[in-house]
Structures are given as structure tokens and as C-alpha cells.
């Protein structure tokens, strides 16, 4: 393998890894606050791409506005899902909420099939993101810089919200104990709604980047990215935002390098992700950056 090809593979890894990272943040965020694995995250991601698609394709909006509306609508969708499917189960055992999440995931995937149709749609890709750029033999498109930059900005912004603002304080209080937080005057329901709004907005940003990168969207597209980002989040230490970014990058790089070094095994790259999950669960169940499990009593 020459240097040039190695660098090209590095670039490929950064592109894929930052995309996984972006999606994993939303996943880990909801888990961090609620201790709920939101299996519907992948489907929220899928629906967000359709919001953006319809904005540009049917309402003929400029892409900037269409993307913005898609993010807002997806955030609202997240809040609605939380209110309808998770809030009634707030005091039920955690497994009930988990099953409810799986139910929401299936419901949305199938609703997507009925409403959007089974055939794939083409996501509008503004040419500005597709500008080819060549750096010393390594070929990328402009999007190569956009996705990691966006991931970094969102990482900083989220850490700020969670650790430096009053809303973040309320979120973290809710994370420890709903009842105690309520006694301290924290509006737990509001904090959770905001968590879902932010988590879903992140899914929408991820969805739009996914659409810009791969051009094709379909109602089943949420499943695998959803699983991969769950793996990335667990790998980095679920609940930890920086960990999710790290996990996403490692997963993206791992997949690319597996194919780069062993092209004969390219068909097994999904298996690689799952083996990674099993290994991390065996060796370090709390993930790379996860702190020791805080068990609520």
C-alpha cells in the first residue's frame, strides 16, 4: 500500500467516521439523560431526510431553508414521540420504555413505507458540497470538510449546553433522580422534552449530511446507521458525548481499514462492527470514556 492510498483511506475514514460520530451524539445524549436507549433514533434520522427531501422537491424551497425546517420539524417529532410513547411509561420499569422504543422504531419505519413509498428517492445535493478537491493525490469533495467541522461545532455546543447552562443543569439533575430533581424545583418533563428536541435535531443534522453524502434515501435506511451509531455510542461509553464522537471515528476508520487491508473480506464489514461491540462489552463494558456505571438505587 503506497502512502497516497493510505492517505486516501484516511480521508475516507474521516468522512465515514465523522458521519457516524454525528449520529452517535444524538443517541448517547438521550441515553445520558434518560437512561433510555432510543431505538427510534434511526427512524427519526430517516424521517428527517424525507422532511428535507420534500422541502426541496415538492415545496421547491431553497435548500438552506428546507434543511432548517427539516431540523425544526424533526426536533418537534422527537418531542411528540417522547410525549406519546415514553412519558406515560416514566414510572414503569425501564424495560417497558425500551420495548416502547422498539415499537416506535417499527411503527415509523412502516409508516414511512406507507407514506413515502418503497422506492428510493434522490436527495437534493447542492453542487457546492460536491466540489471536488485534490490534496496531494488525495481526492475528496467539499463535504469532507463540512461534516467533521459540524461534528466538532456540535460537540462543543452540546458540552456547553449540558455543563454550562441552567437547562443543562436541569438535564443532569433529571439524570440522577427524577423525584429528587422535582423536589429541587426542576421541571423534569421540560428538561426531558428539551433533551429529545436536541437529540432529534442532531439526528436531523446527521440525516441531512447522510443525504448530501450518499444521495439516496429510503424508508429502511434508518436501521443500519441506527445500529452502527448505537455501537459507536456504546464503544465510546454510552451517555458520554465525547465518547460517542470517539466511538464513531473508531468505527468508521475500522470499517474503512478492514476493507483497505483485506479487500477480500469487504463483505464482512458489518460483522466487524458487531464484533467490536461484543469485544468492548466483554473487555470494558462501560466503553472507552464511560465512567463506572452509576446505579440508581
Amino acid at each position, binding site marked *: 500500500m*503506497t502512502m497516497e*492510498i493510505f492517505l*486516501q*483511506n484516511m480521508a*475516507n475514514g474521516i*468522512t*465515514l467516521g465523522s458521519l457516524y460520530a454525528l449520529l452517535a451524539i444524538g443517541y448517547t445524549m438521550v441515553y445520558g439523560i434518560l437512561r433510555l436507549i432510543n431505538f427510534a433514533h434511526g427512524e427519526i434520522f430517516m424521517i428527517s431526510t424525507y422532511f428535507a427531501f420534500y422541502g426541496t422537491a415538492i415545496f421547491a424551497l431553497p435548500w438552506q431553508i428546507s434543511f432548517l425546517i427539516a431540523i425544526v420539524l424533526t426536533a418537534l417529532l422527537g418531542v411528540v414521540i417522547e410525549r406519546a410513547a415514553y412519558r406515560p411509561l416514566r414510572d414503569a420499569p425501564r424495560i417497558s420504555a425500551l420495548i416502547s422504543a422498539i415499537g416506535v422504531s417499527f411503527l415509523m419505519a412502516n409508516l414511512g*413505507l406507507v407514506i413515502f*413509498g*418503497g*422506492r*428510493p428517492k*434522490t436527495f437534493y445535493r447542492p453542487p457546492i458540497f*460536491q466540489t*471536488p478537491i*485534490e490534496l496531494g493525490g488525495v*481526492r475528496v*469533495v467539499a463535504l469532507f470538510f463540512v461534516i467533521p467541522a459540524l461534528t466538532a461545532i456540535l460537540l462543543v455546543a452540546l458540552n456547553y449546553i449540558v455543563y454550562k447552562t441552567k437547562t443543562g443543569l436541569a438535564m443532569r439533575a433529571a439524570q440522577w433522580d427524577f423525584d429528587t430533581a422535582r423536589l429541587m424545583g426542576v421541571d423534569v418533563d421540560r428538561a426531558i422534552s428539551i433533551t429529545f428536541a436536541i437529540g432529534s435535531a442532531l439526528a436531523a443534522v446527521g440525516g441531512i449530511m*447522510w443525504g448530501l*453524502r*450518499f*444521495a*439516496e434515501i*429510503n*424508508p*429502511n*435506511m434508518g436501521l*443500519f446507521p441506527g445500529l452502527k451509531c448505537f455501537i459507536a455510542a456504546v464503544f465510546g461509553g454510552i451517555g458520554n458525548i465525547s465518547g460517542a464522537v470517539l466511538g464513531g471515528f473508531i468505527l468508521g476508520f475500522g*470499517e*474503512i*481499514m*478492514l*476493507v*483497505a487491508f483485506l*479487500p*477480500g473480506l*469487504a*463483505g464482512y*464489514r*458489518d460483522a466487524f462492527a458487531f464484533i467490536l461491540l461484543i469485544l468492548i462489552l466483554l473487555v470494558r463494558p462501560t466503553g472507552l470514556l464511560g465512567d463506572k456505571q452509576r446505579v440508581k438505587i
Partner: protein
Amino acid sequence: MRLHRRLMTALLCLILVSLCGITAAQRETEIRIGVYEPMTGAMAAGGQMTYEGIQLAQEQRPTVLGLPVRVILVDNRSDKVESATAVTRLIQKDKVCAIIGSYGSALSMSGGPVAQAAKVPVMGCSPTNPLVTLGNDYYFRACFIDPFQGRVMAQFAYEKLGARTAAIIQDIAQDYAVGLANFFKQAFTEMTGNPKSIVAFTSYQTGDRDYTAQLTYVANAKPDVVFAPGYYADAAVLITQARSLGLKMPFLGGDTFEAPEFTQIGGKNVEGVYFSTHYSADAPVTPASEKFVALYKAKYKIAPNTFAALGYDCYNLVLDAIERAGSSNPVAIRDAMAKTRNFVGATGIITLDANGDATKSAVVLVVRDGEFKLVDVVHPR
């Protein structure tokens, strides 16, 4: 309250029983033909196009043996497990006497044994993997098979494009793609006489979206052409990424590239892609082709595609067999189907061989200005 509930239960039972009675009574008044096709999932376009052709054929020929034909569609969701379930459902619940389907060789291969065990004949429209009909005397097909298709593309690459080396990127999750990749490899190495003429061979899985690592590997091998058998959406995304990584050589594929989504998703990137398929409206082969093209254009207002044409032919092949069998007995239909000779279809003259396969010519199309243009017709030897 309790009485009320009981009453409701009794009423429901009554309705159910009477419903069963109605379906039982209907059994003799119509001929039921099952269709299992992917209407959703990764192959949805193929299934939907095929079903359009079947619907068109049914409108043209709504009765057989003096009875109305009812076509019952079950979506196999592009999924191998669902596909077997779909066939079971058509046979056990809908009691069909013959089945049409399915786009996607893997889907047909999982539905086939179910139909064989129940002794219900199946007419495949476009599953091209040889294993679909091999060892299954209840499975037939209206299309050519992949040893031929692989050879057609290898020959096209070798003779028309002057290629001496090739790379292969296959969809490893699909029997269709894996089979076709191997037949292409066989034919191409045979033609070049160089066992090392396939300079790169790698895979992906249906639904994967990032192909950059595979393409970087292929780019490094510097092949003259890249053969990438797989389904339309995956292939379009793959070729788009190939172009942005600077791969300029021609990309080649099989009949699954033929879907409007291929050019919609791929846009300018798929210009100049060559693929083989069963039929082109630009090269009508029989009087039936011209009739089909006119009917299709009148109904759907667009130029017809291969899969609609094959769906149209399959419906007529099944009706033809029922007519010759003179009954709706599945075994009798199977025997009549096996004797199909010189059937004039929209996609060509269909004669089924001992395996239940048709021997037909292939066409090679190219994407030009977002449309599929005919470049070559290859006849079987």
C-alpha cells in the same frame, strides 16, 4: 357487560364463518394467480415495474377457460425470509393455481422450494441465477440466465471496449450478483487468456452506502473496466462515489441497473455506464413487442422497461399454460408450462428447455443524457 362481550364474540365468529363460506363458494368461479414481488425494500423498483406489466397483461386478457382471472399480489419486501412466507401465503391462504415472481434471484430461490413442495408451478420474470430452476421442476422462467449474461458483458468489455483487465465489485448478499460476477470472471479470463486479468475482486452488502474503501482498492489496481453487479440504488451510489474518487474507466453491470432510480440517483455520474438487459423498446423482436410498447405507452405514458415486458410475458405464459392444461389444477398447469414452445412474447420467442429456462438474446444499453440507449444486441450461440 359480560353478556355484551359474549354477544360480540358470537357475532364476530358468525361473520368469520360466513366470510369463509363466501371464499369457499368463490373457488370455482375464478382463476387465481399469485404474484410475489418486492414492492418495498432494496429491490422495490424492480418488483413494481414487473407488476405494472402483469397488470397491463391482465387488462388485455382478463379471462381464461371462460372464468375471470384474479391476480393476488403479495409483497416479499426484498427479503429472503419474507419471500418464502409470501409463497406459503399465496398457496395456503389464497389457494392460487400458479405463481408469478420474483425479481431478485435470491428471493426466487427462497420461494422456489416452498412452491415445489406444494406442487404449484412458478413462472419467474427476471431471476437470472441458474440455481433458481435447477433441480426444481416447478420453477420456470421467461428470461435468459447468468452464464449467458456474464459472457455477454465480458465479450462486450473485451471486444467493444477493448478491455484487457477488469475489476469486479459484487454485492455479496445477493445470489444474483455473486453468480453474475463469477460468470463474468470466467468468461473474461477465458477471452483474455490471462488468469490474472481480473486485477481486483471485492464486495459490499446490499444497502451499504460507503464504498470508498473498495473503490480506493480498485483504483489502485488500475483496471480498464469495472464490473459491478448489484441492485440499481446501490450501484448508482457506488458509481457516484467512484467518480468523485477520480475513477474514470467505464462501469459495467447487469439487468438490475435498469430502473429510473439508477439515473435519478446517479445523475451525471452514471453517464456512459453499460449494462446488459433482456429487452429494449428500441429493438422490437416480435409483433407482440410492438403491441406491448403501444399498450404500455397508452397506459403509463412512458417508454416501457424490461421488467414490465417480462411481467407482461409471464402473465401470458401462465394463461397460455392454463389454457393448454384445460383446468386450474396446478400439476396439470405445470406439465403444460414445461411444454411451452415458440411462445411469441414481447421480449422474444420463448421456448423452455429441460431446466425450465428460456434461451433469448440480450441487449446492451448505455446511459446517455439520462436515458437508456441501445448499443448492441447479442444472440445466444
